[in-house]
Protein backbone atom coordinates (compact mmCIF):
# COMPACT_ATOMS: atom_id res chain seq x y z
CA UNK A 1 0.00 0.00 0.00
CA UNK A 2 1.64 3.28 -1.07
CA UNK A 3 1.59 6.15 1.39
CA UNK A 4 -0.64 9.15 0.87
CA UNK A 5 2.37 11.20 -0.12
CA UNK A 6 3.40 8.68 -2.75
CA UNK A 7 -0.12 8.55 -4.10
CA UNK A 8 -0.22 12.31 -4.33
CA UNK A 9 3.06 12.44 -6.21
CA UNK A 10 1.88 9.69 -8.53
CA UNK A 11 -1.33 11.62 -9.28
CA UNK A 12 0.77 14.71 -9.87
CA UNK A 13 2.86 13.00 -12.51
CA UNK A 14 -0.22 11.45 -14.12
CA UNK A 15 -2.03 14.77 -14.33
CA UNK A 16 0.98 16.56 -15.61
CA UNK A 17 2.02 13.95 -18.17
CA UNK A 18 -0.15 15.17 -21.09
CA UNK A 19 1.30 18.66 -20.63
CA UNK A 20 4.81 17.33 -20.45
CA UNK A 21 4.31 15.24 -23.58
CA UNK A 22 3.00 18.21 -25.54
CA UNK A 23 5.68 20.58 -24.34
CA UNK A 24 8.39 18.00 -24.86
CA UNK A 25 7.32 16.94 -28.35
CA UNK A 26 6.33 20.29 -29.77
CA UNK A 27 8.64 22.63 -27.87
CA UNK A 28 11.68 21.04 -26.26
CA UNK A 29 12.56 18.57 -29.00
CA UNK A 30 12.18 21.19 -31.74
CA UNK A 31 14.45 23.54 -29.84
CA UNK A 32 17.11 20.88 -29.45
CA UNK A 33 16.63 20.00 -33.08
CA UNK A 34 17.14 23.61 -34.12
CA UNK A 35 20.41 23.60 -32.24
CA UNK A 36 21.39 20.49 -34.17
CA UNK A 37 20.27 21.86 -37.52
CA UNK A 38 22.27 25.00 -36.91
CA UNK A 39 25.43 22.93 -37.01
CA UNK A 40 24.52 20.89 -40.06
CA UNK A 41 24.55 21.88 -43.70
CA UNK A 42 20.97 21.26 -44.62
CA UNK A 43 18.84 22.68 -47.34
CA UNK A 44 15.26 21.82 -48.11
CA UNK A 45 16.46 19.76 -51.08
CA UNK A 46 18.49 17.32 -48.96
CA UNK A 47 16.25 17.35 -45.92
CA UNK A 48 15.45 13.66 -46.26
CA UNK A 49 19.10 12.63 -45.82
CA UNK A 50 19.55 14.68 -42.68
CA UNK A 51 19.88 12.78 -39.45
CA UNK A 52 21.43 12.92 -36.04
CA UNK A 53 24.70 11.61 -37.39
CA UNK A 54 25.17 13.95 -40.33
CA UNK A 55 28.35 15.92 -40.34
CA UNK A 56 28.48 18.84 -37.91
CA UNK A 57 30.23 22.07 -38.70
CA UNK A 58 30.30 25.74 -37.85
CA UNK A 59 29.80 26.69 -41.48
CA UNK A 60 26.29 28.03 -40.94
CA UNK A 61 27.45 30.51 -38.33
CA UNK A 62 30.17 31.65 -40.73
CA UNK A 63 27.52 32.17 -43.41
CA UNK A 64 25.31 34.07 -41.01
CA UNK A 65 27.93 36.38 -39.53
CA UNK A 66 29.37 37.22 -42.93
CA UNK A 67 26.07 37.66 -44.73
CA UNK A 68 25.33 41.23 -45.69
CA UNK A 69 23.03 43.02 -43.32
CA UNK A 70 23.22 40.60 -40.41
CA UNK A 71 24.74 42.99 -37.90
CA UNK A 72 22.53 45.78 -39.13
CA UNK A 73 19.46 43.60 -38.55
CA UNK A 74 20.65 42.77 -35.04
CA UNK A 75 20.97 46.48 -34.28
CA UNK A 76 17.55 47.09 -35.83
CA UNK A 77 16.05 44.37 -33.65
CA UNK A 78 17.48 45.89 -30.48
CA UNK A 79 16.36 49.42 -31.44
CA UNK A 80 12.93 48.13 -32.36
CA UNK A 81 12.56 46.20 -29.12
CA UNK A 82 13.70 49.01 -26.85
CA UNK A 83 11.63 51.63 -28.68
CA UNK A 84 8.49 49.51 -28.74
CA UNK A 85 8.85 48.45 -25.11
CA UNK A 86 9.34 52.01 -23.87
CA UNK A 87 6.46 53.31 -25.96
CA UNK A 88 3.95 50.63 -25.01
CA UNK A 89 4.74 50.76 -21.30
CA UNK A 90 4.78 54.57 -21.38
CA UNK A 91 1.40 54.90 -23.08
CA UNK A 92 0.05 52.11 -20.88
CA UNK A 93 1.11 54.03 -17.76
CA UNK A 94 -0.45 57.27 -18.99
CA UNK A 95 -3.67 55.43 -19.83
CA UNK A 96 -3.80 53.67 -16.47
CA UNK A 97 -3.30 56.95 -14.59
CA UNK A 98 -5.94 58.71 -16.69
CA UNK A 99 -8.49 55.96 -16.18
CA UNK A 100 -7.74 55.37 -12.53
CA UNK A 101 -10.63 57.32 -11.06
CA UNK A 102 -14.20 56.60 -12.00
CA UNK A 103 -15.99 58.67 -14.60
CA UNK A 104 -19.13 58.03 -16.62
CA UNK A 105 -18.57 55.38 -19.30
CA UNK A 106 -15.24 54.32 -17.83
CA UNK A 107 -15.98 50.63 -18.32
CA UNK A 108 -16.76 51.24 -21.98
CA UNK A 109 -13.63 53.32 -22.51
CA UNK A 110 -11.51 50.71 -20.77
CA UNK A 111 -12.89 47.99 -23.01
CA UNK A 112 -12.34 50.08 -26.15
CA UNK A 113 -8.75 50.62 -25.10
CA UNK A 114 -8.10 46.91 -25.29
CA UNK A 115 -9.21 46.65 -28.92
CA UNK A 116 -5.77 46.93 -30.53
CA UNK A 117 -4.51 44.09 -28.37
CA UNK A 118 -7.34 41.64 -29.03
CA UNK A 119 -7.93 42.32 -32.73
CA UNK A 120 -6.24 40.00 -35.26
CA UNK A 121 -2.80 41.25 -36.20
CA UNK A 122 -3.39 40.75 -39.92
CA UNK A 123 -6.53 42.92 -39.86
CA UNK A 124 -4.95 45.79 -37.94
CA UNK A 125 -1.72 45.81 -39.94
CA UNK A 126 -3.80 45.93 -43.09
CA UNK A 127 -5.83 48.86 -41.76
CA UNK A 128 -2.62 50.71 -40.87
CA UNK A 129 -1.14 49.96 -44.26
CA UNK A 130 -4.14 51.46 -46.02
CA UNK A 131 -4.26 54.47 -43.69
CA UNK A 132 -0.57 55.21 -44.25
CA UNK A 133 -0.49 54.57 -47.98
CA UNK A 134 1.12 57.39 -49.98
CA UNK A 135 -1.47 57.00 -52.78
CA UNK A 136 -4.84 56.74 -51.04
CA UNK A 137 -3.98 56.87 -47.34
CA UNK A 138 -5.91 59.15 -45.09
CA UNK A 139 -2.80 60.08 -43.07
CA UNK A 140 -1.08 61.56 -46.09
CA UNK A 141 -4.20 63.38 -47.27
CA UNK A 142 -4.60 65.05 -43.94
CA UNK A 143 -0.88 65.68 -43.65
CA UNK A 144 -0.91 67.48 -46.97
CA UNK A 145 -4.09 69.46 -46.47
CA UNK A 146 -3.89 70.24 -42.75
CA UNK A 147 -0.20 70.11 -41.91
CA UNK A 148 1.11 71.35 -45.23
CA UNK A 149 3.41 68.48 -46.19
CA UNK A 150 4.93 69.07 -49.64
CA UNK A 151 4.58 65.47 -50.74
CA UNK A 152 3.23 62.23 -49.33
CA UNK A 153 5.39 60.30 -46.90
CA UNK A 154 5.80 56.60 -47.64
CA UNK A 155 5.64 55.64 -43.98
CA UNK A 156 6.19 51.95 -44.55
CA UNK A 157 8.57 51.88 -47.50
CA UNK A 158 10.85 54.84 -46.96
CA UNK A 159 14.06 54.12 -45.15
CA UNK A 160 15.01 57.66 -44.25
CA UNK A 161 13.68 61.14 -44.41
CA UNK A 162 15.74 64.22 -43.82
CA UNK A 163 14.14 66.54 -41.38
CA UNK A 164 15.43 70.09 -41.49
CA UNK A 165 15.12 71.97 -38.25
CA UNK A 166 17.02 75.16 -37.33
CA UNK A 167 19.38 74.58 -40.26
CA UNK A 168 20.30 71.06 -39.17
CA UNK A 169 19.46 68.08 -41.33
CA UNK A 170 18.39 65.25 -39.07
CA UNK A 171 17.95 61.86 -40.70
CA UNK A 172 14.75 60.18 -39.51
CA UNK A 173 14.32 56.42 -39.99
CA UNK A 174 10.70 56.69 -41.10
CA UNK A 175 9.75 53.06 -41.60
CA UNK A 176 11.42 51.88 -38.39
CA UNK A 177 9.69 54.60 -36.36
CA UNK A 178 6.36 53.72 -37.93
CA UNK A 179 6.78 50.08 -37.01
CA UNK A 180 7.74 51.06 -33.44
CA UNK A 181 4.68 53.32 -33.25
CA UNK A 182 2.54 50.41 -34.38
CA UNK A 183 3.97 48.20 -31.64
CA UNK A 184 3.34 50.89 -29.07
CA UNK A 185 -0.24 51.18 -30.27
CA UNK A 186 -0.88 47.47 -30.37
CA UNK A 187 0.65 46.54 -27.02
CA UNK A 188 -0.02 49.48 -24.73
CA UNK A 189 -3.30 47.80 -23.66
CA UNK A 190 -1.28 44.95 -22.21
CA UNK A 191 0.72 47.33 -20.00
CA UNK A 192 -2.41 49.36 -19.29
CA UNK A 193 -4.30 46.33 -17.96
CA UNK A 194 -1.57 45.28 -15.56
CA UNK A 195 -0.83 48.80 -14.36
CA UNK A 196 -4.48 49.60 -13.81
CA UNK A 197 -4.96 46.42 -11.78
CA UNK A 198 -1.95 47.35 -9.64
CA UNK A 199 -3.05 50.98 -9.29
CA UNK A 200 -6.41 49.94 -7.98
CA UNK A 201 -4.76 47.82 -5.33
CA UNK A 202 -2.64 50.71 -4.01
CA UNK A 203 -3.85 51.34 -0.46
CA UNK A 204 -5.52 54.72 -0.10
CA UNK A 205 -4.15 55.67 3.33
CA UNK A 206 -0.64 56.63 2.23
CA UNK A 207 -1.99 58.82 -0.51
CA UNK A 208 -4.52 60.43 1.79
CA UNK A 209 -1.85 61.11 4.39
CA UNK A 210 0.39 62.79 1.83
CA UNK A 211 -2.59 64.72 0.52
CA UNK A 212 -3.23 66.05 3.99
CA UNK A 213 0.44 66.93 4.25
CA UNK A 214 0.00 69.13 1.19
CA UNK A 215 1.68 66.96 -1.44
CA UNK A 216 0.67 67.97 -4.96
CA UNK A 217 -0.45 65.54 -7.65
CA UNK A 218 2.98 65.21 -9.22
CA UNK A 219 4.57 64.73 -5.79
CA UNK A 220 2.08 62.06 -4.86
CA UNK A 221 2.80 60.32 -8.13
CA UNK A 222 6.56 60.56 -7.74
CA UNK A 223 6.78 59.51 -4.10
CA UNK A 224 3.72 57.39 -3.43
CA UNK A 225 2.37 55.84 -6.63
CA UNK A 226 5.46 55.30 -8.74
CA UNK A 227 7.43 53.34 -6.11
CA UNK A 228 4.53 50.94 -5.79
CA UNK A 229 4.19 50.57 -9.54
CA UNK A 230 7.90 50.03 -10.14
CA UNK A 231 7.94 46.22 -9.76
CA UNK A 232 5.07 45.88 -12.23
CA UNK A 233 6.71 48.31 -14.65
CA UNK A 234 9.96 46.36 -14.47
CA UNK A 235 8.20 43.07 -15.08
CA UNK A 236 6.23 44.53 -17.98
CA UNK A 237 9.36 45.98 -19.52
CA UNK A 238 11.06 42.59 -19.43
CA UNK A 239 8.05 40.75 -20.81
CA UNK A 240 7.48 43.26 -23.59
CA UNK A 241 11.16 43.30 -24.46
CA UNK A 242 11.27 39.52 -24.80
CA UNK A 243 8.11 39.37 -26.84
CA UNK A 244 9.07 42.23 -29.15
CA UNK A 245 12.56 40.85 -29.61
CA UNK A 246 11.11 37.60 -30.93
CA UNK A 247 8.31 39.25 -32.85
CA UNK A 248 7.78 38.26 -36.44
CA UNK A 249 4.22 39.01 -37.57
CA UNK A 250 4.04 42.74 -37.12
CA UNK A 251 7.14 43.73 -39.05
CA UNK A 252 6.60 41.09 -41.70
CA UNK A 253 3.05 42.22 -42.33
CA UNK A 254 3.75 45.95 -42.24
CA UNK A 255 6.93 46.28 -44.27
CA UNK A 256 8.00 42.76 -45.18
CA UNK A 257 11.31 43.62 -43.53
CA UNK A 258 12.15 46.30 -46.07
CA UNK A 259 13.21 49.93 -45.69
CA UNK A 260 15.50 49.41 -42.71
CA UNK A 261 13.09 47.38 -40.61
CA UNK A 262 14.63 43.96 -41.15
CA UNK A 263 14.56 42.38 -37.71
CA UNK A 264 16.26 39.04 -37.18
CA UNK A 265 13.11 36.92 -37.04
CA UNK A 266 12.00 38.21 -40.44
CA UNK A 267 15.48 37.46 -41.75
CA UNK A 268 15.24 33.90 -40.44
CA UNK A 269 11.97 33.51 -42.30
CA UNK A 270 13.54 34.78 -45.49
CA UNK A 271 16.47 32.39 -45.19
CA UNK A 272 13.99 29.61 -44.69
CA UNK A 273 11.55 30.34 -47.49
CA UNK A 274 13.47 32.28 -50.12
CA UNK A 275 16.83 30.56 -49.92
CA UNK A 276 15.65 27.24 -48.48
CA UNK A 277 18.77 27.35 -46.34
CA UNK A 278 17.51 25.59 -43.23
CA UNK A 279 20.91 25.35 -41.57
CA UNK A 280 21.62 29.06 -41.85
CA UNK A 281 18.09 29.92 -40.76
CA UNK A 282 18.47 27.76 -37.66
CA UNK A 283 21.89 29.28 -36.88
CA UNK A 284 20.37 32.73 -37.14
CA UNK A 285 17.43 31.88 -34.90
CA UNK A 286 19.90 30.52 -32.37
CA UNK A 287 21.92 33.73 -32.46
CA UNK A 288 18.68 35.63 -31.82
CA UNK A 289 17.86 33.46 -28.80
CA UNK A 290 21.46 33.77 -27.59
CA UNK A 291 21.43 37.56 -27.73
CA UNK A 292 18.16 37.59 -25.83
CA UNK A 293 19.59 35.35 -23.13
CA UNK A 294 22.59 37.68 -22.78
CA UNK A 295 20.29 40.69 -22.42
CA UNK A 296 18.22 38.93 -19.81
CA UNK A 297 21.26 37.73 -17.92
CA UNK A 298 22.56 41.28 -17.74
CA UNK A 299 19.15 42.46 -16.59
CA UNK A 300 18.84 39.79 -13.90
CA UNK A 301 22.35 40.44 -12.67
CA UNK A 302 22.10 44.19 -12.36
CA UNK A 303 18.52 45.37 -12.36
CA UNK A 304 16.15 42.58 -11.48
CA UNK A 305 14.08 43.09 -8.38
CA UNK A 306 12.65 39.58 -8.60
CA UNK A 307 11.44 37.62 -11.59
CA UNK A 308 9.75 34.30 -11.30
CA UNK A 309 6.32 33.01 -11.95
CA UNK A 310 6.01 31.71 -8.45
CA UNK A 311 3.87 33.77 -6.13
CA UNK A 312 2.43 31.21 -3.81
CA UNK A 313 5.41 30.80 -1.48
Amino acid at each position, binding site marked *: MPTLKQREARAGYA*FLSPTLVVVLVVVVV*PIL*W*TIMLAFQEIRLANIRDAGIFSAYSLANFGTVFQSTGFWQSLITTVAYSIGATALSVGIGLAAALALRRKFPMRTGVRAAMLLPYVAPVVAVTFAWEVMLSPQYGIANRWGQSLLGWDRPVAFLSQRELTWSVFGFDIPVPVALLTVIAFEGWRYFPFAF*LFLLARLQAVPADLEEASY*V*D*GATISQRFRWIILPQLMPVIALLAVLRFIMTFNK*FDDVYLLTGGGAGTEVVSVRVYQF*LTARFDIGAAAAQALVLAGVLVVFLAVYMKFFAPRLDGDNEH
Partner: protein
Amino acid sequence: MSTDQTAPPVTPVEAAAAVETAPRRPVRVSTTRDTAETVIFGILRWLTIAFLIVVTAFPFYYMLLLSVRPIDKVLQNPARLWVSAEEFTVETYRTVLRSVEDGGQGFLSLLFNTGLVALATVAVTLLVAIPGSYAVSRLRFTGRRQVHFLFLAVYLFPSILLAIPMFVLFTRIGLRGSLAGLTIVYVAQTVPVSIYMLRNYLSTIPESIEEAAAIDGCSRLDIVRRVVIPLAAPAIMANALYIFMIAWNEFLFALLFLVEERDKWTVSLGLAQLSGGIEVSKTVLMAGSVVLTIPVVLLFFAAERLLVEGLTAGADKG
Protein backbone atom coordinates in the same frame (compact mmCIF):
# COMPACT_ATOMS: atom_id res chain seq x y z
CA MET B 1 8.31 63.92 2.16
CA SER B 2 7.08 67.22 0.88
CA THR B 3 9.48 69.28 -1.17
CA ASP B 4 6.97 72.08 -1.43
CA GLN B 5 8.35 74.88 0.78
CA THR B 6 5.14 76.86 0.85
CA ALA B 7 3.05 74.00 2.18
CA PRO B 8 1.58 74.97 5.56
CA PRO B 9 2.63 72.72 8.40
CA VAL B 10 -0.10 70.31 9.36
CA THR B 11 0.29 68.60 12.68
CA PRO B 12 -0.83 65.00 13.02
CA VAL B 13 -3.51 66.08 15.48
CA GLU B 14 -4.99 68.58 13.06
CA ALA B 15 -4.87 66.04 10.27
CA ALA B 16 -6.55 63.42 12.39
CA ALA B 17 -9.25 65.90 13.37
CA ALA B 18 -9.75 66.78 9.73
CA VAL B 19 -10.07 63.10 8.81
CA GLU B 20 -12.57 62.59 11.56
CA THR B 21 -14.86 65.40 10.51
CA ALA B 22 -14.66 64.69 6.80
CA PRO B 23 -13.39 61.19 6.18
CA ARG B 24 -13.53 61.32 2.35
CA ARG B 25 -11.92 64.69 1.74
CA PRO B 26 -9.71 65.97 4.53
CA VAL B 27 -9.61 69.75 4.97
CA ARG B 28 -6.34 71.34 4.00
CA VAL B 29 -5.01 74.58 2.62
CA SER B 30 -4.16 74.49 -1.05
CA THR B 31 -0.99 76.12 -2.30
CA THR B 32 -0.64 77.88 -5.64
CA ARG B 33 1.38 75.04 -7.05
CA ASP B 34 -1.15 72.57 -5.80
CA THR B 35 -4.04 74.42 -7.40
CA ALA B 36 -2.14 74.81 -10.64
CA GLU B 37 -1.30 71.11 -10.75
CA THR B 38 -4.85 70.11 -10.00
CA VAL B 39 -6.06 72.19 -12.91
CA ILE B 40 -3.31 71.14 -15.32
CA PHE B 41 -3.51 67.43 -14.56
CA GLY B 42 -7.29 67.59 -14.58
CA ILE B 43 -7.17 68.91 -18.14
CA LEU B 44 -4.35 66.58 -19.15
CA ARG B 45 -6.31 63.63 -17.91
CA TRP B 46 -9.25 64.39 -20.18
CA LEU B 47 -6.94 65.14 -23.10
CA THR B 48 -5.23 61.79 -22.57
CA ILE B 49 -8.54 59.96 -22.43
CA ALA B 50 -9.81 61.69 -25.58
CA PHE B 51 -6.54 61.06 -27.42
CA LEU B 52 -6.50 57.39 -26.46
CA ILE B 53 -10.10 56.85 -27.53
CA VAL B 54 -9.44 58.41 -30.92
CA VAL B 55 -6.17 56.57 -31.44
CA THR B 56 -7.48 53.14 -30.48
CA ALA B 57 -10.87 53.35 -32.12
CA PHE B 58 -10.01 55.21 -35.30
CA PRO B 59 -8.32 52.38 -37.25
CA PHE B 60 -11.31 50.18 -36.53
CA TYR B 61 -13.77 52.85 -37.55
CA TYR B 62 -11.79 53.45 -40.73
CA MET B 63 -11.76 49.72 -41.45
CA LEU B 64 -15.53 49.58 -41.10
CA LEU B 65 -15.97 52.74 -43.15
CA LEU B 66 -13.86 51.60 -46.08
CA SER B 67 -15.55 48.23 -46.16
CA VAL B 68 -18.89 49.82 -47.07
CA ARG B 69 -17.65 52.34 -49.63
CA PRO B 70 -17.06 51.50 -53.30
CA ILE B 71 -13.39 51.50 -54.27
CA ASP B 72 -13.63 54.23 -56.92
CA LYS B 73 -15.23 56.60 -54.42
CA VAL B 74 -12.50 55.85 -51.91
CA LEU B 75 -9.79 56.61 -54.45
CA GLN B 76 -11.50 59.86 -55.40
CA ASN B 77 -11.90 61.03 -51.86
CA PRO B 78 -9.85 59.04 -49.37
CA ALA B 79 -10.02 61.59 -46.58
CA ARG B 80 -13.76 61.46 -46.17
CA LEU B 81 -14.84 60.30 -42.72
CA TRP B 82 -18.41 59.23 -43.31
CA VAL B 83 -20.37 57.23 -45.84
CA SER B 84 -23.25 58.79 -47.71
CA ALA B 85 -26.46 56.88 -48.32
CA GLU B 86 -25.95 56.58 -52.10
CA GLU B 87 -22.38 55.39 -51.63
CA PHE B 88 -23.20 52.72 -49.10
CA THR B 89 -22.63 49.19 -50.39
CA VAL B 90 -22.41 45.66 -49.03
CA GLU B 91 -21.20 44.29 -52.36
CA THR B 92 -17.70 44.16 -50.82
CA TYR B 93 -18.92 41.67 -48.23
CA ARG B 94 -20.65 39.56 -50.87
CA THR B 95 -17.48 39.46 -52.95
CA VAL B 96 -15.21 38.55 -50.10
CA LEU B 97 -17.46 35.81 -48.76
CA ARG B 98 -18.49 34.24 -52.07
CA SER B 99 -16.62 31.11 -53.09
CA VAL B 100 -13.73 31.39 -55.52
CA GLU B 101 -15.66 29.51 -58.23
CA ASP B 102 -18.36 32.16 -58.11
CA GLY B 103 -15.84 34.92 -58.58
CA GLY B 104 -15.48 35.79 -54.89
CA GLN B 105 -12.60 35.35 -52.46
CA GLY B 106 -13.99 32.34 -50.61
CA PHE B 107 -13.65 33.82 -47.11
CA LEU B 108 -16.64 31.85 -45.89
CA SER B 109 -14.73 28.61 -46.16
CA LEU B 110 -11.65 30.30 -44.69
CA LEU B 111 -13.78 31.37 -41.74
CA PHE B 112 -14.85 27.77 -41.36
CA ASN B 113 -11.20 26.59 -41.37
CA THR B 114 -10.20 29.20 -38.83
CA GLY B 115 -13.13 28.40 -36.55
CA LEU B 116 -12.40 24.69 -36.76
CA VAL B 117 -8.74 25.08 -35.85
CA ALA B 118 -9.51 27.54 -33.06
CA LEU B 119 -12.20 25.35 -31.47
CA ALA B 120 -10.06 22.21 -31.73
CA THR B 121 -7.19 24.11 -30.13
CA VAL B 122 -9.42 25.22 -27.25
CA ALA B 123 -10.71 21.70 -26.65
CA VAL B 124 -7.33 19.97 -26.71
CA THR B 125 -5.56 22.67 -24.74
CA LEU B 126 -8.12 22.57 -21.94
CA LEU B 127 -8.00 18.79 -21.86
CA VAL B 128 -4.26 18.99 -21.34
CA ALA B 129 -4.05 22.12 -19.23
CA ILE B 130 -6.76 21.48 -16.62
CA PRO B 131 -5.14 18.37 -15.12
CA GLY B 132 -1.73 19.96 -15.66
CA SER B 133 -2.58 23.13 -13.78
CA TYR B 134 -4.25 21.15 -11.01
CA ALA B 135 -1.09 19.11 -10.56
CA VAL B 136 1.08 22.22 -10.49
CA SER B 137 -1.13 24.14 -8.09
CA ARG B 138 -2.15 21.39 -5.70
CA LEU B 139 -0.12 18.22 -5.75
CA ARG B 140 3.28 17.94 -4.16
CA PHE B 141 5.82 15.99 -6.15
CA THR B 142 9.51 16.20 -6.93
CA GLY B 143 10.18 18.55 -9.83
CA ARG B 144 7.10 20.68 -9.40
CA ARG B 145 9.07 23.89 -9.19
CA GLN B 146 11.20 22.96 -12.20
CA VAL B 147 8.04 22.69 -14.28
CA HIS B 148 7.45 26.42 -13.83
CA PHE B 149 10.87 27.13 -15.12
CA LEU B 150 10.25 24.98 -18.17
CA PHE B 151 7.15 26.96 -19.03
CA LEU B 152 8.91 30.26 -18.56
CA ALA B 153 11.71 29.07 -20.82
CA VAL B 154 9.23 28.33 -23.60
CA TYR B 155 8.52 32.04 -23.80
CA LEU B 156 12.14 32.98 -24.14
CA PHE B 157 12.52 31.17 -27.41
CA PRO B 158 11.30 32.92 -30.52
CA SER B 159 8.47 31.04 -32.18
CA ILE B 160 10.45 31.27 -35.39
CA LEU B 161 12.97 28.98 -33.68
CA LEU B 162 10.27 26.36 -33.18
CA ALA B 163 9.02 26.99 -36.68
CA ILE B 164 12.09 25.61 -38.42
CA PRO B 165 12.09 22.06 -37.00
CA MET B 166 8.31 21.92 -37.08
CA PHE B 167 8.49 22.88 -40.74
CA VAL B 168 11.02 20.12 -41.37
CA LEU B 169 9.21 17.53 -39.26
CA PHE B 170 5.77 18.21 -40.68
CA THR B 171 7.15 18.15 -44.22
CA ARG B 172 8.57 14.72 -43.49
CA ILE B 173 5.52 13.13 -41.92
CA GLY B 174 3.10 14.84 -44.27
CA LEU B 175 1.33 17.00 -41.70
CA ARG B 176 2.37 20.24 -43.35
CA GLY B 177 -0.58 21.64 -45.21
CA SER B 178 -3.08 20.06 -42.83
CA LEU B 179 -5.26 21.77 -40.27
CA ALA B 180 -4.51 19.00 -37.76
CA GLY B 181 -0.81 19.83 -37.89
CA LEU B 182 -1.59 23.49 -37.28
CA THR B 183 -3.78 22.57 -34.30
CA ILE B 184 -0.96 20.59 -32.70
CA VAL B 185 1.35 23.60 -32.92
CA TYR B 186 -1.29 25.93 -31.49
CA VAL B 187 -1.92 23.60 -28.58
CA ALA B 188 1.77 23.60 -27.74
CA GLN B 189 1.83 27.39 -27.92
CA THR B 190 -1.17 27.87 -25.65
CA VAL B 191 -0.70 25.17 -23.01
CA PRO B 192 1.95 27.05 -20.97
CA VAL B 193 -0.03 30.30 -20.72
CA SER B 194 -3.18 28.35 -20.07
CA ILE B 195 -1.61 26.47 -17.17
CA TYR B 196 -0.25 29.71 -15.78
CA MET B 197 -3.67 31.38 -15.81
CA LEU B 198 -5.54 28.40 -14.40
CA ARG B 199 -2.99 27.71 -11.71
CA ASN B 200 -3.45 31.18 -10.27
CA TYR B 201 -7.17 30.57 -9.98
CA LEU B 202 -7.00 27.00 -8.71
CA SER B 203 -4.72 27.97 -5.85
CA THR B 204 -7.51 30.20 -4.51
CA ILE B 205 -9.90 27.25 -4.09
CA PRO B 206 -9.80 26.18 -0.43
CA GLU B 207 -8.14 22.81 0.00
CA SER B 208 -10.67 21.83 2.66
CA ILE B 209 -13.41 21.41 0.05
CA GLU B 210 -11.31 18.86 -1.74
CA GLU B 211 -10.43 17.13 1.52
CA ALA B 212 -14.13 16.83 2.32
CA ALA B 213 -14.73 15.25 -1.07
CA ALA B 214 -11.82 12.87 -0.51
CA ILE B 215 -13.23 11.77 2.85
CA ASP B 216 -16.54 11.14 1.12
CA GLY B 217 -14.69 8.66 -1.04
CA CYS B 218 -13.88 10.65 -4.19
CA SER B 219 -10.79 9.65 -6.11
CA ARG B 220 -8.43 12.35 -7.42
CA LEU B 221 -10.06 12.25 -10.81
CA ASP B 222 -13.51 12.53 -9.24
CA ILE B 223 -12.36 15.50 -7.19
CA VAL B 224 -11.12 17.27 -10.29
CA ARG B 225 -14.26 16.44 -12.25
CA ARG B 226 -16.87 17.11 -9.62
CA VAL B 227 -15.32 19.74 -7.39
CA VAL B 228 -12.48 21.59 -9.06
CA ILE B 229 -13.88 22.03 -12.57
CA PRO B 230 -17.29 23.37 -11.45
CA LEU B 231 -15.62 25.74 -8.99
CA ALA B 232 -13.12 26.95 -11.56
CA ALA B 233 -15.71 27.30 -14.33
CA PRO B 234 -15.34 31.09 -14.70
CA ALA B 235 -11.57 30.82 -14.96
CA ILE B 236 -11.85 27.97 -17.42
CA MET B 237 -14.27 29.98 -19.54
CA ALA B 238 -11.95 32.97 -19.58
CA ASN B 239 -9.09 30.71 -20.45
CA ALA B 240 -11.02 29.08 -23.29
CA LEU B 241 -11.78 32.50 -24.76
CA TYR B 242 -8.19 33.56 -24.48
CA ILE B 243 -6.98 30.43 -26.26
CA PHE B 244 -9.63 30.90 -28.92
CA MET B 245 -8.35 34.41 -29.56
CA ILE B 246 -4.75 33.31 -29.84
CA ALA B 247 -5.62 30.53 -32.27
CA TRP B 248 -8.01 32.68 -34.28
CA ASN B 249 -5.49 35.50 -34.66
CA GLU B 250 -2.37 33.42 -35.28
CA PHE B 251 -0.45 34.09 -38.45
CA LEU B 252 3.15 32.78 -38.59
CA PHE B 253 2.49 29.05 -38.42
CA ALA B 254 -0.48 29.29 -40.74
CA LEU B 255 1.81 31.04 -43.20
CA LEU B 256 4.54 28.43 -42.89
CA PHE B 257 2.34 25.36 -43.05
CA LEU B 258 -0.63 26.20 -45.23
CA VAL B 259 0.51 28.77 -47.75
CA GLU B 260 0.54 26.36 -50.68
CA GLU B 261 -3.00 25.05 -50.18
CA ARG B 262 -5.55 27.74 -50.72
CA ASP B 263 -8.55 25.66 -49.63
CA LYS B 264 -6.96 25.19 -46.19
CA TRP B 265 -6.05 28.83 -45.56
CA THR B 266 -7.15 30.55 -42.39
CA VAL B 267 -8.70 34.00 -42.70
CA SER B 268 -5.55 35.71 -41.41
CA LEU B 269 -3.42 33.94 -43.98
CA GLY B 270 -5.89 34.62 -46.78
CA LEU B 271 -6.03 38.29 -45.95
CA ALA B 272 -2.26 38.61 -45.74
CA GLN B 273 -1.73 36.77 -49.02
CA LEU B 274 -4.34 38.75 -50.93
CA SER B 275 -3.38 42.16 -49.52
CA GLY B 276 0.11 41.79 -50.96
CA GLY B 277 -1.26 41.69 -54.49
CA ILE B 278 -3.17 44.27 -56.51
CA GLU B 279 -5.88 42.06 -58.04
CA VAL B 280 -8.28 42.33 -55.10
CA SER B 281 -9.58 45.79 -54.32
CA LYS B 282 -8.73 47.29 -50.94
CA THR B 283 -12.35 47.79 -49.94
CA VAL B 284 -13.09 44.10 -50.48
CA LEU B 285 -10.10 43.26 -48.30
CA MET B 286 -11.33 45.72 -45.70
CA ALA B 287 -14.58 43.77 -45.64
CA GLY B 288 -12.41 40.69 -45.12
CA SER B 289 -10.66 42.39 -42.18
CA VAL B 290 -13.99 43.26 -40.62
CA VAL B 291 -15.17 39.68 -41.00
CA LEU B 292 -11.94 38.48 -39.39
CA THR B 293 -12.11 41.00 -36.54
CA ILE B 294 -15.78 40.84 -35.58
CA PRO B 295 -15.94 37.36 -34.01
CA VAL B 296 -12.97 38.07 -31.75
CA VAL B 297 -14.18 41.51 -30.73
CA LEU B 298 -17.71 40.26 -30.01
CA LEU B 299 -16.37 37.42 -27.89
CA PHE B 300 -14.12 39.83 -26.11
CA PHE B 301 -16.85 42.29 -25.25
CA ALA B 302 -19.12 39.48 -24.13
CA ALA B 303 -16.53 38.28 -21.65
CA GLU B 304 -14.36 41.31 -21.03
CA ARG B 305 -14.54 41.23 -17.26
CA LEU B 306 -13.77 37.52 -17.08
CA LEU B 307 -10.82 37.89 -19.40
CA VAL B 308 -9.28 40.91 -17.78
CA GLU B 309 -9.45 39.32 -14.36
CA GLY B 310 -8.06 36.04 -15.63
CA LEU B 311 -5.16 37.71 -17.39
CA THR B 312 -4.10 40.05 -14.64
CA ALA B 313 -4.71 37.70 -11.71
CA GLY B 314 -1.85 38.19 -9.31
CA ALA B 315 -0.73 41.49 -10.83
CA ASP B 316 -2.17 43.41 -7.90
CA LYS B 317 0.03 41.53 -5.49
CA GLY B 318 2.93 43.57 -6.79
